[in-house]
């Protein structure tokens, strides 16, 4: 294993695989804050050269957090398909990259290879990709999941309806759901971020969405994004829950700061299977985001992009229905501006898909980042071209509970019509049946929330 390279007459040496991974990252404020990003542009490129020559076996032997110290490392390593791994362990990262992009490499072949990859390998190959490489490569990696709707099919784009309210008011939430549905949002999920993380409130919101879905026979699923332990208590008390949510981080220590570990997630997965409303294989929903480990002081001197890939490696254990990065939400100390947010969003989607996880994205930004809605538009358009499974849908892109901006109901409809994509097939049938959509486009009757009240 060689950790140095001579470039333009200068030798660059690195102390470890972890250091190479950190220095090879595109510029991110979080890596700079942690003191592990490249100190010069040339050093960054030198690290990419070194990384390109490492083999997959080198990366497996050097996870950014040692197996003995971290259960996330152990979960990912234990999940490797050893038979496939033996076929590709000698490949260099550069060879893997070119193989992924080659015309002769099929989606099925990538899907099979992905089962032998650790998070560090997925992160490494993405560090050798330009933005367009990440878009083109990810497009070859569809990951399809199924609950009441089928999400991630080629030619389809889904939307998680996010009808948040600053006080969890049921009428206000209902109004946002009505508006979202008549724009064609909600085929991935109707998922509420609760303001009040308490069993009684979570149960009430689950009942509200469950009853609405039943009454209008909408092919979709409900979820209230409280802490997993609150949702488990609600489930135990009989709340009607389709999908179970939790935020993930890429190290055991950071997950502990979230109040979770693998044992708890295992228990949660078993519980939603037994007590949830759906009898399906895909029942979990995870959110992630570059920088959460550093913000918890638990980044183990690893770069935020590799740690993000480890979240997907952990998610893989649970065969989730939905996984998305909340890419611009963690804050400008981790992703400073629109350029960094766009880059990270493309990386996250690519890495997740390569690891076989059904990636969607919350293309978003907070008001203390150097970013605006134009950056959100750019990222969402590129990710749609990349085959992203779903985006968020929020009224006019303004989340009045979480106080940040992301993609709107309008954006979901626009992205579909722009690139000729349809909603999930079951949901499209529902829209067409009610005259809200025809030939993949909103009808004149669509986009009016009063439609629901006129039907009753």
């Amino acid at each position, binding site marked *: 294993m060689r950790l140095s390279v001579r470039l333009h007459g200068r030798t660059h040496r690195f102390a470890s695989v972890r250091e190479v991974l950190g220095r090879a990252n595109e510029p991110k404020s979080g890596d700079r804050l942690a003191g592990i990003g490249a100190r010069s542009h040339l050093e960054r490129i030198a690290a990419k050269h070194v990384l390109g020559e490492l083999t997959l076996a080198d990366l497996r032997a050097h996870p950014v957090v040692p197996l003995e110290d971290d259960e996330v490392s152990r979960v990912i390593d234990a999940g490797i398909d050893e038979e496939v791994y033996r076929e590709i362990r000698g490949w260099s990262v550069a060879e893997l990259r070119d193989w992924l992009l080659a015309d002769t490499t099929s989606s099925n072949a990538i899907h099979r290879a992905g089962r032998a990859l650790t998070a560090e390998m997925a992160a490494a190959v993405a560090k050798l990709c330009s933005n367009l490489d990440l878009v083109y490569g990810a497009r070859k990696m569809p990951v399809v999941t199924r609950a009441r709707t089928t999400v991630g099919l080629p030619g389809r784009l889904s939307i998680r309806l996010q*009808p948040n*309210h*600053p006080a969890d008011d049921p009428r206000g939430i209902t*109004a946002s759901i009505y508006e979202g549905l008549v724009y064609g949002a909600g085929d991935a999920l109707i998922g509420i971020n609760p303001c*009040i993380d308490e069993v009684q409130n979570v149960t009430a919101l689950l009942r509200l969405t469950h009853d609405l879905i039943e009454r209008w026979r909408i092919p979709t699923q409900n979820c209230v994004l409280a802490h997993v332990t609150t949702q488990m208590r609600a489930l135990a008390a009989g709340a009607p829950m389709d999908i179970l949510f939790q935020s993930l981080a890429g190290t055991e220590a950071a997950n502990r700061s979230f109040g979770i570990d693998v044992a708890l997630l295992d228990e949660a997965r078993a519980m939603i299977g037994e007590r949830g409303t759906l009898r399906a294989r895909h029942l979990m929903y995870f959110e992630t985001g570059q920088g959460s480990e550093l913000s918890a002081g638990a980044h183990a001197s690893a770069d935020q992009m590799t740690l993000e890939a480890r979240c997907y490696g952990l998610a893989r254990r649970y065969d989730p229905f939905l996984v998305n990065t909340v890419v611009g939400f963690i804050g*400008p100390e981790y992703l400073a501006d629109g350029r960094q947010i766009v880059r990270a969003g493309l990386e996250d989607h690519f890495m997740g898909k390569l690891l076989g996880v059904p990636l969607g994205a919350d293309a978003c930004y907070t008001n*203390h980042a150097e970013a605006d809605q134009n950056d959100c538009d750019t990222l969402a358009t590129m990710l749609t071209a990349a085959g992203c499974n779903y985006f968020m849908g929020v009224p006019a892109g303004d989340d*009045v509970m*979480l106080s940040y901006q992301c993609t709107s109901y309008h954006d979901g409809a626009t992205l579909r019509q722009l690139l000729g994509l349809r909603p999930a097939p079951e949901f499209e049938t529902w829209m067409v049946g009610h005259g809200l959509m025809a030939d993949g486009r909103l009808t004149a009757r669509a986009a009016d929330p*009063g439609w629901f009240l006129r039907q009753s």
Partner: protein
Amino acid sequence: MSRAVAPPGLAALLAATPARLAIGRAGPRLRARSYLRFLADHARAREAVMSEVPRSFVRALGLVEIGTRAATRAEYLAIPELGRTLAPAAVVRLQRCRRRPDVQLAITDGLSSTAVLENGAALLSGLGRRLRARGDRLGTLLFIRNGRVRVQDEIGAIIHPEIFCLLVGERPGLATAESLSAYVIFRPTRCSAEPDRTVISNIHCAGLSPQRAVRAIVDLIAEMQAYGASGTTLAEARSAAERGRPGDGTRNRRTEARAADHQPHR
């Protein structure tokens, strides 16, 4: 684009949320008016984050200004640790401030100068009046420029207050840029952690009004004095007293997600 007459009942639903609903469309896009409204609200939020609280405002309220190691807003945003640590001159200035008060009050810009300008005066004067009326001895009123929540601990280690209430400008949303949070802690030290604080958030005219917030904060301070605790310890003591048995470690709500120093979990 013409639309059918709104059915009865819709107005009541729409009135129950500040979300931007029933705004129509231009093709699949926002109409010009909605788009321009959105841009105006974003510009206001950016202004709240990036602008400075004028020194004249600090003087007019009779506050003593101290600074953190973050010299500019840009530094403050890029390197959170700087906003949690006092500048050397601030440490010197604090030596001359009143020690061991019953209650130390302070305000910091955090992520919104606008919040301080809009609601700071009403909160500080209301709190001062009510606390003095209860017989509490107050510390020197402080304004901390470019501060984050944890700067409370370093100040606490110098001043040694019984209770420390720090008002912090919250990360602005499009709906309001005027929201503050109160972080209240019993006997802060350099070793204090997030669960040691009790937070009252969403303080602004359209949320928890400054008048109601003053009452809530004073009640909270009285409770902390009675129990000799804050944060999760206070919550446990409170529920133990209510149920007559040991506490069950009540979880904090996540309403602090917008506050300046809180990790926004989703």
